[in-house]
């Protein structure tokens, strides 16, 4: 069987003809397998959804309980038969519940990585490479300039800045699912024991993580209760980056804008966002991790999706691995 008989790109997303299902479809379909809960991968309106229990729960939190007609929870490592195709979910280390999906038939195994991260992270199940014939990799940070530093050092810079400028509120831009919880946890693991304040948009997912046994310490709403601007001087406040352009920010004492993202490695991105303190903390693998993973899977063919496809294909060419871009549309690499 040829690989593109087992999985092929269609406008809706990656499609498996023998199993009649899509992986991370961007339009409503009858049967969807979802790698993780970020909204560009996990959309509402499908017939049946197969995903990890955490991903299903996160989709329900974001889209409401009726986000699909029927759902099934996949356990990591457990194989499920869909029309003669063997499907197995493996941890992707991206956010809580995120999975790589292995699709197998007649001895051919394709692994769709979804988004993945190789670094240890107590807020997500640990990534492990899965041996396969074809590996479908994301390429968000697929350029050799992206080499993420130790996140502990980045969080250290945030804590030091909060100490150097105790009159300013340190506002850290974080996306609601994954990054917010990781940054909160990194703060705890690196000695910040004071409360961490959060924007209302982060509350639900943070509570879900905490209810799932991931300790994020003392999280408090970033609202003023009878106090003034002084309330947040020297505080660390987490919020979605979009909120920093809104009047919400005006409640804080001389805010210093930080942003936790893999994009913060690039100065032009820092300046575009008006970031004063860039924190290179990413949900995705960097270049070194990505290329190592391509080798580790032992795949003889690499398909490259959203991000810097050209550079990853070039690396494969230099390393004698057959590779091609998939040109899937609809996945945003901005929301990192």
């Amino acid at each position, binding site marked *: 069987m040829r690989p593109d008989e087992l999985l092929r790109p269609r406008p809706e997303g990656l499609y498996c003809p023998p199993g009649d299902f899509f992986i991370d479809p961007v339009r409503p379909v009858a049967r969807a397998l979802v790698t993780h809960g970020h909204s560009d991968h996990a959309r509402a309106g499908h017939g049946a959804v197969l995903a990890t229990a955490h991903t299903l729960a996160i989709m329900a939190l974001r889209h409401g309980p009726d986000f699909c007609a029927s759902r099934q929870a996949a356990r990591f490592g457990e194989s499920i038969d869909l029309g003669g195709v063997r499907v197995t979910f493996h941890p992707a280390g991206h956010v809580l519940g995120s999975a790589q999906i292995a699709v197998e038939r007649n001895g051919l195994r394709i692994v769709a990585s979804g988004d993945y991260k190789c670094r240890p992270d107590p807020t997500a199940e640990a990534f492990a490479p899965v041996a396969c014939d074809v590996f479908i990799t994301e390429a968000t940070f697929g*350029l050799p300039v992206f080499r993420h530093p130790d996140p502990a050092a980045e969080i250290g810079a945030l804590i030091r800045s909060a100490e150097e400028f105790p009159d300013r509120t340190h506002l850290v831009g974080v996306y609601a699912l994954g990054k917010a919880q990781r940054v909160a946890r990194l703060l705890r693991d690196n000695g910040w024991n004071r409360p961490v304040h959060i924007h209302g948009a982060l509350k639900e997912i943070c509570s879900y993580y905490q209810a799932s046994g991931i300790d994020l310490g003392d999280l408090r709403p970033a609202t003023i209760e009878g106090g003034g601007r002084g309330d947040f001087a020297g505080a660390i406040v987490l919020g979605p980056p979009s909120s920093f352009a809104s009047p919400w920010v005006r409640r804080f004492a001389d805010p210093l804008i930080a942003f936790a993202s893999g994009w913060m490695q690039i100065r032009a991105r820092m*300046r575009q966002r008006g970031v004063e303190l860039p924190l290179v903390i990413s949900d995705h693998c960097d270049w070194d991790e990505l290329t190592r993973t391509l080798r580790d899977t032992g795949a003889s063919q690499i398909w490259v999706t959203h991000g810097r496809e050209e550079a990853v294909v070039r690396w494969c060419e230099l390393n004698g691995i057959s590779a091609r871009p998939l040109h899937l549309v609809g996945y945003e690499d901005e929301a990192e």
Partner: protein
Amino acid sequence: MRAFAHLLERLVLTPSRTRKIELMVHYFRAVPDPDRGLGLAALTGDLDLVAVKPALIRQLVAEVTDAELFGLSYDYVGDLAETVALIWPAPGGSDAPLRLSQVVAALDGASRSEAPAVLRRLLDGLGPSQRFAALKLATGGLRVGVSARLARQALADFGGVEVNAVEEVWHAQASPYASLFAWLEGRGDKPVSRVAAPFRPVMLAHPLDERDRAAIGPRDYLAEWKWDGIRVQAVAEGGARRLYSRSGEDITAAWPDLIAAMEFEGAIDGELLVRRAAHGGDAGTFADLQQRLNRKSVSTRLQQQFPAFVRAYDLLVDDGEDVRALALTSRRERLALLVGRLDPLRFDLSPLVPFADAGELERLRRSPPHPVIEGLMLKRRDAPYLPGRPKGPWFKWKKDPHVVDAVLMYAQRGHGKRSSYYSDYTFGVWHEGELVPVGKAYFGFTDEELRALDRFVREHTTDRFGPVRAVRAEPGFGLVLEVAFEGLNRSGRHRSGIAMRFPRIARIRWDKPPAEADRLATLEALLPGSPGAPTP
């Protein structure tokens, strides 16, 4: 090096002037000599390293990376030093971190043949953000938004003294400024300016706004033309002759023709201009002056083609006597006497403009008698010469800019901050039924407008040439930009034959059909020497 790299990154990202100063003060406190002094010299542009050419950096990186991967990366990042700092395949950050002084010594001591090996060793031994700082040092362009004056303000805050006190002694000091720091920390005496013919901090003007106009009248103020050259201070004292820019950079070496004519004893404040030898010695435009700017030395041919002169308007020192505390009228009397003894082709007196009231000034401002005038200066008769920018004694009142409706033709991706945006716009006007490009502008719009322009470019691209896109520009469809500019010059380099001075986007005319944009003839009428241009 770690502290310096961190300082550079924070300075570049910190918009607030006050916070920039604070960051520098923290740096001066935390970092020992001589590193902090070298860091200061790097910020103020006084660290005189033999510049490494970008070609060498490209060559080094080509040895360790695939050309195609590097190309894709550079295209994405938009800055050579940054791309190399990030892509360099060594882990960096060794156990014995390098000090800034060690990096500077390595770069400084390297001969041309040693430079590649030295740079390679530095790149191997440093972490990414320090590599970036080292490359910026090596190529000589920090661009962190810190002027020499801002750095001196930080020194003043660090030492708890007035900034003018720092400026006065600045020229007696050299990197790494050990005695300057000793004085500011109270460990040593105030350094004495041992430089002959030192720089004195200059007096600057505020733009005249509506509220100030009522105060302007001939009883209290003198008016003179604002000449479109560069502000200089010509100092001849005790046999030494120096020419300084307004921020105190010593630019003596590039103006030997003028220096030879400094047959006086004192310090003159004035506008540096050039004459156009080919046009009977009339004052040349800023474009002519530019031929001689930013050069370390100057050829005899250029000196003959564009001889330099100073249009003097103030006197700071008169034959050994500091006259800055005197009233402007007294200083001008002395200046007139002094200039009268000099070669009139090299030094002349900026004439006063008689006026009855602010209304007359308004009329004069709108139609100045010479193309090299960019407005009026208004100075209080009784004001002493005060360094800095005091509010009230001096005002500048510029001409209104010219505006033209032009059509967007090409857009280029920006570099640096705008590397993911099409932010540099080439625009044209109609000539014989076709658009001819007349200029390029890359500012004057808000961030929101930039996003809208970027979207327009991406959605209406008709062709691509590397980082440049051609966009749809037809009489019935396209985007009209209202472009403001300060003046026009003839230019052989542009197809239209004209070059715009200081063009910027004044408004985006989403509403205006391109057919209604301006014609080339409208612009040609504004060229110096044409019937429609202001004449002397």
